[in-house]
């Protein structure tokens, strides 16, 4: 289960809507399964960003160090699916990392629609849904 507190959730939704129709991405910081802060990151993919995102490892490294300095952990990552549902796609699975909760935000026509959270396995074969509480 992952719980996202309202300020962090608002940051995620706003980042997803502002980045529409491209995909956004970012990381979620907190402790004990509760996200207290969301950090929007730039989509580092150099091709069309409407259905793909890449996080810059340097960004991840930096955010992880900052998290450590403030006594929190990187609990998960988030990204948006513009104009489609918040499923865990084939691409998501192929590039997934089992260390994190993956929150996917569906943004339709520029507005947040719904979200799901997934927990991918080590082999990048399956990503069961986990309970997501936000706001």
């Amino acid at each position, binding site marked *: 289960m992952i719980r996202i507190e309202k300020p962090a959730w608002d940051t995620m939704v706003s980042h997803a809507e502002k980045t529409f*129709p491209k995909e956004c991405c970012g990381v979620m910081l907190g402790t004990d399964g509760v996200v207290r802060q969301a950090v929007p990151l730039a989509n580092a993919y150099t091709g069309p960003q409407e259905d793909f995102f890449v996080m810059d490892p340097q960004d991840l490294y930096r955010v992880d160090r900052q998290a450590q300095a403030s006594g929190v952990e990187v609990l998960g990552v988030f990204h948006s699916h513009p104009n489609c549902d918040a499923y865990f796609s*084939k691409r998501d699975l192929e590039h997934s990392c089992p260390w994190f909760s993956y929150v996917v935000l569906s943004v339709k026509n520029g507005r947040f629609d719904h979200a799901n959270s997934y927990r991918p396995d080590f082999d990048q074969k399956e990503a069961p849904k986990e309970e997501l509480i936000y706001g």
Partner: protein
Amino acid sequence: MAKILIPTPLRQYAGKRDAVELHGATVGEVLHALTSQYSDLRRHLYTDEGKLRSFVNVYVNDDDIRYLSKEATPLKDGDTVSIVPSIAGGSAGIAAPPVALSKDEILRYSRHLIMPEVGMDGQLKLKNAKVALIGTGGLGAPLGMYLAAAGVGRIGLVDFDVVDFTNLQRQVIHGTKDVGRKKLDSAAETMLDINPFIEIDRHETALSSENALQILKDYDLVVDGTDNFPTRYLVNDACVLLGKPNVYGSIFRFEGQATVFAYPGGPCYRCLYPEPPPPGLVPSCAEGGVLGILPGVIGLIQATETVKLILGAGEPLVGRLLLYDALAMRFRELKLRRNPHCPVCGDHPSIHELIDYQEFCGIPNQAHEPVAAAGDIDVVEVKAKIDRGDSFVLIDVREPHEYQICRIDYARLIPLGDLPKRVNELDSAEEIVAHCKSGVRSAKAVDFLKQAGFRKVRNMKGGILAWSDKVDPSVPKY
């Protein structure tokens, strides 16, 4: 001795430590030492075959070891080794589609499925799409038929009208057998005959400020197939407020327009037309006519844009107004920009809810007919006056080509546009009755004559259509 920085999610497997100092000549050696010391870390970093997992990036100081010598990268005393996850993804490739296509659907959509731009993903997007179609008339007919055929999974039709004979020249979704039926039923029947794999919602109502948001909120996008200004502003404002694209089209005689309004960052109908035209200035298709084929062309441009928006394919018709001239057979494009001062989609909008669009467009409540100043005269009374041999002048203010379709023999043809220069043909002492097709233009003629000083002028209520209904059924209606 090298320092290995442990990312926060893995710390629980490394004795809650954020860094571990270990000996080793290469990256491979220190990672081996790390996973020997903390065996729970092993499966996070290595596959069962002993290879680094694809989502694990390792940096020596600031450099990715993939660009050095990978795990054989040598280490010096004091080097820092960082473990950083690799994270990417994207919506492409639906892993667990919410719905799958049946065998029959795969056959039906095979010409879509073999195109890379549509394919299975695209066809599922179409199947999952929810489109509101306002109006099942000239534009709505080709739109409804082709969107159904393309496999748009849910189509909400909004109409309250009944099919009549004058519709059949262009509204190809309805047939002769449907005259007198509700357009909703007739349209839905045709669409489901074309494609029984779709769902149709029937909204039998005139779209209004009271119901628009409620009806449209359940759809992904809205296609405007209406023919009047109040509804166009209503659809536009509702789409902007709901954040749904508005696929717009309009037609008149030989000319049509199409564009996509209310797309994020793009203009809306109000950016193009901040104010409606004065009522009566722009004739409707019922008043001015329309080439029957024209809505086919414009409606299918709207259908194309609708399908493109659903697929996310190509370049949407956003910020461009496509103009079509059937007589010249030319397409032109006007650039449109979002107006930052637009009252509904601008940076500081002043309209936050739907308004009274009849009033906004200057149309008085109830009647579409202008109020005729000193009263109307019924067709039966006009007939009685002719039969009695009363002395009066009946002027027909329609166009000559309408006069060719049907006429009242007693009437004299003076088209409305010619009235100012031919007004001297009329005697202000005489009683004058004006008529047109339905009573709208003749009311304007009456107003004009009154302003020109004529006192005894009346408007024949309901025009020649009423004459055909009540006096002489042999007069054809058009």
